[in-house]
């Protein structure tokens, strides 16, 4: 029973990280209907920037702030310089561009930081807990708290502020949002900044959790998060979060606990295929 609860908790932690990476993808799909594959590269860059600023300052907070700022700028640059000019073409054009950005950014990381796995020797200063006889390591507490805080912030932003109203309006009808006096291009850039900032936090958390930062750390998340937003319902933020948590739990329990002989990363795709066959709008989507 203890092992089960421990694994469940690990699953939630891993699912939380998936959620943080996937949020940006869901936000971008919701507003531009683009599959922003390069988002995983933003997450990788976030991990590197976090490590860089952490090493320079010795403070994880500064590391995180640097990663957030750098990734927000990177995300907006990708939107302004690459996606926006391509919006007039069919959706596969920005998708191809996005894959190219992913590969290019990974190469840039490899060239700048070297083809090594770097360690991220930082500690999340969260308390280790002991609940119901289960040990919760401080890294798990940290991931859960940070994810909860980010989700709460995002919920507040989208449902309780005028900017959030504008984001939802632009995602539903961009031209009419403009006619209502909303500067939709600014709203789109803001959405990229928010999604990329969250990816930066995810990159730093993963770097610390596994004590690894490397240039291809975004490769698996790049396609796994695609599977997650399909399962959750394209463009649905609650769907993306729910699907991320479910996947994290399923991966940990089915493969780590029940020892089902499958490669761990296959599960996301089995779920995606199942969803496409039986409920193509996804768990939370609408058609």
């Amino acid at each position, binding site marked *: 029973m203890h092992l089960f609860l421990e694994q469940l908790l690990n699953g939630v932690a891993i699912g939380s990280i998936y959620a943080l990476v996937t949020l940006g993808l869901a936000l971008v799909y919701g507003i531009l209907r683009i599959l922003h594959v390069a988002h995983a590269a933003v997450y990788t860059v976030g991990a590197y920037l976090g490590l860089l600023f952490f090493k320079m300052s010795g403070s994880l907070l500064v590391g995180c702030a640097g990663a957030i700022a750098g990734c927000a700028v990177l995300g907006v640059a990708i939107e302004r310089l690459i996606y926006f000019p391509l919006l007039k073409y069919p959706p596969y054009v920005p998708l191809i561009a996005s894959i190219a950005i992913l590969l290019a950014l990974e190469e840039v990381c490899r060239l700048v930081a070297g083809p090594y796995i770097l360690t991220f020797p930082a500690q999340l200063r969260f308390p280790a807990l002991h609940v119901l006889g289960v040990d919760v390591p401080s890294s798990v507490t940290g991931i859960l708290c940070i994810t909860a805080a980010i989700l709460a912030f995002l919920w507040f932003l989208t449902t309780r502020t*005028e900017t959030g*109203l*504008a984001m*939802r*309006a632009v995602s*539903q*009808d961009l*031209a*009419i*949002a*403009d*006619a*209502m*006096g*909303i*500067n*939709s291009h600014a709203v789109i850039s803001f959405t990229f900044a928010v999604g990329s900032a969250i990816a930066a936090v995810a990159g730093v958390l993963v770097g610390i959790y596994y004590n690894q930062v490397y240039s291809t750390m975004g490769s698996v998340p790049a396609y796994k998060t695609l599977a997650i937003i399909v399962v959750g319902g394209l463009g649905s933020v609650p769907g993306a979060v729910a699907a991320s948590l479910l996947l994290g739990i399923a991966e940990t329990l089915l493969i780590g606990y029940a020892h089902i002989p499958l490669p761990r990363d296959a599960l996301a795709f089995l779920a995606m295929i199942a969803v496409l066959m039986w409920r193509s709008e996804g768990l939370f989507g*609408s058609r």
Partner: protein
Amino acid sequence: MLLEVNRLEISYGDVRAVHGVDFVVEEGELVSIIGANGAGKTSILNGLMGLVPARRGSIRFHGQEITAVPAHKRAHGGIRLVPERARVFPRLSVFENLLTGAYGLRKKIDLDGRLRWLYELFPILEERRDQPAQTLSGGEQQQLAIARALISDPRLLLVDEISMGLMPKLVDQVFDLLQSLNRDLGLTILLVEQNARASLEISHRAYVLETGSVVMEGPAKDLLNNPDIRKAYLGLAREEEAKRQ
């Protein structure tokens, strides 16, 4: 002169939708542009709102050149659109749809007062306040689209094919409402309509648009009595012939 349009030309790729039209709207006027489907009416309104770029020509609003001004700035300058088929934000509630109309203006306008006035005008919107707009009927969505445009207290209201898809009874109500907004509150309205008779009956002046060009203009009363217009747009000629026989 509130709105002055000179040689406005709009194209989509190689297809020219509007071939250099000229028209004006004076402060306090209710003007309609009538014409068949595909004559370029919606393109003109979208061009005035800034949703499609003008290929050539100029648009002046309150004497200011706005041809290159982006849509959201035109909206803040007082031009508001009631789009074809309402185009309310489907997954926003009725109330949130109204708030989008007041985006960036909440401190400049008396939001509560405007909401009270709109709920008086359209009681159904208060009843359905928290429902997603997509659950409204077509007529209710049109009311919401009008309310969303009115909440900002616009100087020029652009109304695109408001009668489309509405029951005849509702069409009459909507046109009565537009007329009273114009007559009682002095709201300047530019109406674009396929339903020529209903729009001519409430308009001061009108322009007739055919394949992207203005072919006739004048006081709405004259156009209502013009035999060519009656034949082409009002479907009256045949009725009268039938009566005579």
